């Protein structure tokens, strides 16, 4: 469906590309400065672009009544929501991952750090979608809820941001990054196990 309405997934992706490409203009084009702050730039921008896409997570389905049909379906609601979250990741997380090596290069990241950056994105962008699904279910039906969504979701995104940027930064100094990757993997597993169920409860409550 999103492929037939490309703006829904192209907008966050364009935001990701444009925001990152503005940093060298605003801060410094020097390779040393940029490569130092590159992990933070990429990860903060990635997080914000995912956040940007979350407003539309249930919005259209709610407005046209398809969400009601999902909720009353005899099929497992958590399973439907998991499928929807995977679709969200395929259209937001995956394009970001695919573009990140190119954007990493523009920020003068070394090949090894780009590899770690892609690895952290691969491990953590699904968590962003899963946690985002909870927030999106809570704000269903609330008008102009962008700020509320940010307030609900950003605190839950902070650990991911810390571990992911720390992993990329440490890789630049050839320090071990296993701990950060394990943390990101455990956050992914926990959100994978809980998010569909919590989202289903939140969605039913929001629609009631």
């Amino acid at each position: 469906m999103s492929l037939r309405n490309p703006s829904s997934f192209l907008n966050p992706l364009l935001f990701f590309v444009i925001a990152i490409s503005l940093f060298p203009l605003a801060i410094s084009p020097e390779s040393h400065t940029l490569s130092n702050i590159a992990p933070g730039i990429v990860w903060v921008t990635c997080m914000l672009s995912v956040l940007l896409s979350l407003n539309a997570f249930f919005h259209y389905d709610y407005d046209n009544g398809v969400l009601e049909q999902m909720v009353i379906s005899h099929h497992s609601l958590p399973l439907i929501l998991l499928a929807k979250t995977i679709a969200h990741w395929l259209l937001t997380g995956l394009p970001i991952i695919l573009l990140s090596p190119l954007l990493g290069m523009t920020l003068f990241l070394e090949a090894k750090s780009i590899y770690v950056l892609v690895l952290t994105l691969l491990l953590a962008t699904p968590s962003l979608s899963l946690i985002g699904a909870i927030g999106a279910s809570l704000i269903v039906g609330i008008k102009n809820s962008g700020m509320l969504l940010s307030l609900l979701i950003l605190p839950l995104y902070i650990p991911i941001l810390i571990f992911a940027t720390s992993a990329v930064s440490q890789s630049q100094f050839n320090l071990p990054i296993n701990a950060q990757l394990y943390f990101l993997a455990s956050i992914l597993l926990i959100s994978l196990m809980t998010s569909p169920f919590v989202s289903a409860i939140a969605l039913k409550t929001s629609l009631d």
Partner: protein
Amino acid sequence: MSKLIVSDLSCQRGYNELFSNLSFELNSGEILKISGANGSGKTSLLKILAGLNSAESGRLSINNNKAGSYDYQSDIFYLGHLPALSPELHCKENLDYLTQLSISSSNQSLNDALTNVGLKNFENEYAANLSAGQKRRVVLSALFITQSKVWLLDEPFTALDSDGINVIETQITKHCDNGGICVLTTHQKCNLPSLRTLTL
């Protein structure tokens, strides 16, 4: 044989009590029309019956299966006020998705169902390009496919012309003749046999 039992149902929205201690039973073949003034709780009652909203108190069951259970949700087919169509999908894709979410069978193909409601050759038309009446027809064509026993239809005749209303009334009658149950709200006159009315 199917049996829908509603006992002691109460509903409150905000500080307003819409209805309380509402009880009724519907057996196979029966059609219940819920009538009442605007805001009397017709849609709320249907949403509660569909398992979409929760009641303050009371019990609901279809053949002893409680609301929210797999069997209960399999038995109901609910169409609300909203079109339940995604504008980015074709009519046929929308209908397929809608029927996949409820119990359906392939007795009647999606194309035939669309033909029945006068939308032949509209299979590959985007829902966004349809008029309000045509959108309603696409959704209602699901009635030709679904195998759910209890139909809950909220204002099914809205935006339909007289021909469309006849088609849907015939389908509802056929469903009830085959042992189904139908609960509907409408402000229009309907030509449905064995129609019971519940006024809220």
